[in-house]
């Protein structure tokens, strides 16, 4: 049983393809305060490697990456 992560904001990028999920995540993250958590939902099979790269490049920590109901779900903590 993994801990439940509580998000401050949800961003649904379902149906969007590269590079829109990365662009929208970056925009949404700018509106958060340091330490706050963004939950991002994507249907793009390219999202897992891309969101990991985005996290490494921006320093916003990827707390969890998982699949839920056939969708990819990511939790990022704002740097």
């Amino acid at each position, binding site marked *: 049983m993994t801990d439940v992560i509580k998000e401050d904001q949800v961003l649904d990028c379902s149906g969007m393809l590269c590079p829109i999920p990365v*662009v929208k995540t970056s925009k949404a993250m700018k509106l958060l305060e340091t330490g706050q958590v963004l939950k991002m939902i994507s249907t793009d099979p390219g999202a897992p490697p891309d969101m990991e790269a985005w996290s490494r490049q921006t320093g916003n920590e990827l707390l969890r990456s998982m699949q839920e109901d056939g969708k990819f779900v990511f939790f990022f903590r704002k740097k």
Partner: protein
Amino acid sequence: MSKSDPNAPRRLALISSKGTLDWAYPPFILATAGAAMGWEVGIFFTFFGLTLLKPKLTAAVSPLGNPAMPMKMPFGPEGFQNINWAMPNMLMANVPGFESVATNLMKQTFKNKGVATVEEMRDMAVEMDVRLIGCQMTMDVFGFKKEDFIPEAEIGGAATFLEYASDADVQLFI
């Protein structure tokens, strides 16, 4: 100046040299992805890439000269949409309006799949402070003036690009 200052963001320098729909996407996709990662991004538009700086984009695509281009129908059941239609060159070269049909099919397929339009990608790039630089020399050759382009476009030459690129972490010619 990214390399002289260790705290400066990474930098991406792109050259966009082609103006058809298939070549219009890669520079804008990479530019917006780079900007989303906090990178500094500049695109230098030269030769046919210059047309991507016009306010109204008319980028089209031709299956002629693109022999590997898949021809897909953007409507009907999934199995039908996945069929790759064989289009012999002889046929394409002789049918008037074939290019506009191919262009519309590609645009519709992209839209159905959830890909943004080139216009939307360019708007995003502008919003994310991507530098868009038009090549002065090719502007002169093709008779373009700065007023023919979107107001966000800057003008520069080879030295402008090289100076920018010399401090970039990634440089690509597209």
